[in-house]
């Protein structure tokens, strides 16, 4: 299915809500950023697919409650805010706005 770009207030459609089950995730591209989209406790959360410790992908890590754990060195980030929760990360990764309308999920990039 072709991705539609909905430019209403900067939100871009990224996928269907029904594609991601509870506890699931999907990596999507929004402009020139790669984003990890997660569904936890019924809501959708979007963060950069980027571990600020080593610059590598983050979204494939384990989910522990609200924390995503980077698979390479164990740095933890809060899914909701991007905040770094443990060493070796010392800086947050970017967290973005998500909204759902019907079965469509939209992401708006929050620039630093």
């Amino acid at each position, binding site marked *: 299915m072709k991705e539609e770009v909905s430019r209403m207030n900067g939100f871009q459609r990224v996928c269907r809500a029904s594609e991601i089950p509870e506890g699931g995730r999907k990596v999507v591209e929004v402009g020139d950023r790669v984003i990890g989209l997660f569904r936890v406790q019924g809501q959708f959360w979007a963060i950069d697919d980027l571990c600020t410790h080593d610059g590598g992908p983050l979204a494939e890590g384990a989910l522990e409650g609200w924390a995503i754990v980077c698979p390479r*060195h164990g740095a933890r980030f809060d899914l909701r805010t991007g905040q770094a929760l443990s060493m070796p990360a010392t*800086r947050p990764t970017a967290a973005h706005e998500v909204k759902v309308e019907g079965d469509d999920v939209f992401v708006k990039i929050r620039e630093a």
Partner: protein
Amino acid sequence: MVAELQVAKPDVIGEINKYDFRNQERYVFKARKGLDADIVREISAMKGEPAWMRDFRLKSLEIFESKPMPKWGGDISIDFQDIYYYIKPTDHQGRSWEEVPAEIKDTFDRLGIPEAEKKYLAGVKAQYESEVVYGSLRDELAKQGVIFTDTDTAVREYPDLLREYFGTIIPPSDNKFAALNSAVWSGGSFIYVPPGVKIDFPLQAYFRINAANMGQFERTLIIVDEGAYAHYVEGCTAPMYSTESLHSAVVEVVAKRGARVRYTTIQNWANNIYNLVTKRAVAYQDALVEWVDGNLGSRLTMKYPSVYMLEPGARGEILSVAFASAGQHQDAGAKVVHCAPHTSSRIVSKSISKNGGRASYRGLVKVERGAKRVKSNVVCDALILDPKSRSDTYPYIELEEQDVMIGHEASVSRIGEEQLFYLTSRGLTEAEASTMIVSGFIEPLVKELPMEYAVEMNRLIALQMEGTVG
């Protein structure tokens, strides 16, 4: 060093024998070889640990098993199932020297500990086969609230304090060997220095590997509170073995606001030991952390003491010396990570490779976004003493801020002919001249060592340089 001495001189043999000996193996309990969840549970049970530590160990074991071996650095061929991960030498911890079992005392007598104790050391924690056998703490320090004990004891007696920091500087998933240590750690030091307390003599510990295939997995945690000061010294030696031996320590250091911590290591492991260590410090506002790291032994050392400067005014300094001889690979260096503005760091690395040895400097200077007004300087000098040897330099600089002053320089060369000529023309033999030049080369580190270490260091260099030049 032990293995390669060709020409025996009487005093030198005595010197060697002082460090190369074994006691008969008589222990209270000896775990079986190999590593699995049962062993880890046994270790935790033997130590009488709380559930959280046992679970931490088990989780770490899973992480260790899931991580691949590093694809960089030295050549690590270890059969992890062919190692004992825990041995407990006695049932209780001795309070004074007299209570310690005779043969263990003998080991430490020969290592010169009693003399050291007579001097001005605060206390001696001697590790023997993964347990701290002997320790004594000076009364004054105890009164000031200084805690200097072994980590096992700390888990029992200071659980809240320990738990607040344990595994937070170096999480188990940081790297494969941190995970291993997190699963099977035993012994090591736990130090807490309360605010404002300045300990003006070095706190010291020794390590030793004795049983064949014994691994050392000490876990050290040092917390120096606001405005306090401590200097911790560790030096280790070990006899030669025919099968591989593994030393995989984790050292976590916290330097709070205005604190100063210096951690000195002289490592002189025997040539069959893999020495894979993760050492990291976090420095808060205006704190200073200094690592003084001497790597003289082991078959392979991979060790990069690090300082993370988390708040403005924090500083990190790392002084590293590596000596690689035949059959040795020292892959050592330093990492400094600037996470806050107005922080500065300095790394000085000196390495010598001879007789086919390989010395590699590996380091990182990282400045994160927002860390303005950062200054960092790195100097790496390497001496290669002959065409069989090898020297590498792998420095990494990663910057995300513009307001920085970053400098790095490195050079590799052999002993200058003019320098040699100058000294030999004044009556020194070439060997003596080379030794003098090498000693001068590492002098910046040696002068930072406590006196007995400096003496030991210079003696070891002289031994190493025997028969080098010809």
